[in-house]
């Protein structure tokens, strides 16, 4: 996936502000280039330090809005507070194909590592995907 330095910094700021809870949002764009991010509210108030959930209706609205404006949902970004930027089994169980899953490791409130992952079509695992940062 490709993303501008400015947008990536916005993602980092959003996720750092959410620390020590997990925070998440949706990435919009076209042809693998992220052009807009939509921060979402983490609905998992019961276990927000290790889970995120975007309300399906809120997500439906984001998709419809993107469709209307001619953008695509390219993927989801979320934080892993104090742990590595690798997808967990829980991430795998809930993943969708064709999306970029951008995971940011936020340690002690600082975004320290950003990695992107894509689900294999057979759902068995994620594959690492390079993140191209555009100036």
């Amino acid at each position, binding site marked *: 996936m490709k993303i501008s330095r400015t947008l990536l910094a916005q993602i980092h700021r959003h996720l750092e502000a959410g620390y020590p809870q997990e925070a998440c949002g949706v990435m919009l764009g076209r042809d693998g280039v992220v052009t807009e991010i939509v921060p979402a509210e983490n609905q998992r108030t019961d276990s927000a330090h290790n889970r995120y959930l975007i309300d399906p209706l809120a997500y439906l609205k984001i998709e419809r809005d993107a469709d209307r404006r001619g953008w695509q949902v390219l993927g989801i970004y979320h934080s892993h507070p104090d742990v590595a930027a690798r997808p967990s089994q829980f991430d795998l169980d*809930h993943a969708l194909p064709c999306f970029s899953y951008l995971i940011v490791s936020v340690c002690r409130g600082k975004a320290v590592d950003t990695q992107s992952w894509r689900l294999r079509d057979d759902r068995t695992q994620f594959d690492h995907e390079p993140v191209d940062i555009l100036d």
Partner: protein
Amino acid sequence: MAITITIPTALRRFTDNQSQVAVTGTTVSDVLRDLLQKHPLLRQHLCDEAGKLRNFVRVYVNDEDIRATGESTPVKDGDEIAIVPSIAGGIEPVITARAKLTNEEIKRYSRHLILPEVGMEGQERLKAAKVLLIGSGGLGSPLALYLTAAGVGTIGMVEFDTVDFSNLQRQILHFTPDVGKPKLQSAAEKLKAINPRLNFIPHPTKITSDNALELIKDYDLVIDGTDNFPTRYLVNDACVMLKKPNVYGSIFRFEGMASVFAPHLGGPCYRCWYPEPPPPGMVPSCAEGGVLGVICGIIGNIQANEAVKLIIGKGKPLMGRLLRFDAMDMTFREYKIPKDPDCPVCGKNPTITKLIDYLEFCGIGRGEAGGTSGDSIAAQTDEHLGPDDISVETLKKMRDAGEDFVLVDVRNPDEFQISEIAGSLKLPLPDLPQRFRELPQDKLLVVHCKMGGRSARAVSFLKSQGYTKVKNVAGGINAWAERIDPNVPQY
């Protein structure tokens, strides 16, 4: 008018990029069936193996969630159905359970509690945590001591050995008065003295393919502190199958290594790194090659550190990374261990789905077991010996009867200074390929080392060079010292 289903962006690749699909039917279940018939590739992502909608797939009819009424919800022409993924994910903590601390424990763990990364939550997780240590030797000793001190609530220990004098140089859980005691008893006494509230679960057994899953299944994580390949592969495979993190450590001479194997958390497993064991005997054990005692503390505590991090769910685990320590240069180097997609146990299409015979997998027969399976000398009687083996009792009889044979000692020169069986010809194993012609072909050769492992390799080498009359002394000079000549020191 037809019924339309809106497809989420992520799944449009499976509907020829259509965002809406026209379907027919009178219930949600009908229209979903129709949709999957038109676009069968959707099935894998919408439904689980049992054919049920995946738990993150929501269906809305005219923006109403049908969860209450289920798939039998009626639909009619003109309805708009939307399939909406509930976007979810998150970290998989190794431990979610927490156990309340008493006031005494709050005092005891105050230096942890004031660390924001540990805090009450982390300390309560430590108390709820159940950790299984495989072995209570060099690595198991510091691990058990520090994990107990750190407040881990339950520690299980798999160990069948008794404390030997040669353990005391590095196995700091055991003291001189403990020599001869079962290690589990010695461990329980020390650990209970540190923390009387510790739930210590002794497993007085050898871990095998028959009991490994049963032993491991109730623990949250496993720490492998063993010194042999069959157990290492066994523990790895069992942990992968049970989705338990395996904190690995190993030591040899002046070096140590550590890593965390946890494919279910996104990392590799031991087999991703080493798909196959080295040929038996190529990597000597600590009993053969020696080990600097203090290294056990360094590597064991790196393992303890990783275990604590996994339990409290903080920090960057040593996953996908191998840390290698060199005591002589005093360097730590880090190597990447990539996850192998074709790994036979944690890969895409695993070929090993149940535990196998690990002794056979590692090419270890009876005669060689002593050389690769760590510190214990199996007391071998003649009926348990391999065809090329003789017992120390037989060797004694042959010597007493004045039989004509050559006793060959294939240990290293340093070891000749520790002990010897008088009259032996000294020919260190590494020199054997260059010097074997010094040995007579027409006489019986009886080969020994410390415990029987290296001499077994010498025997098979000599046989491959055409020597027909060669025997291996099972148990080596240590068995000789134990059962024949108490004046010879054991080491």
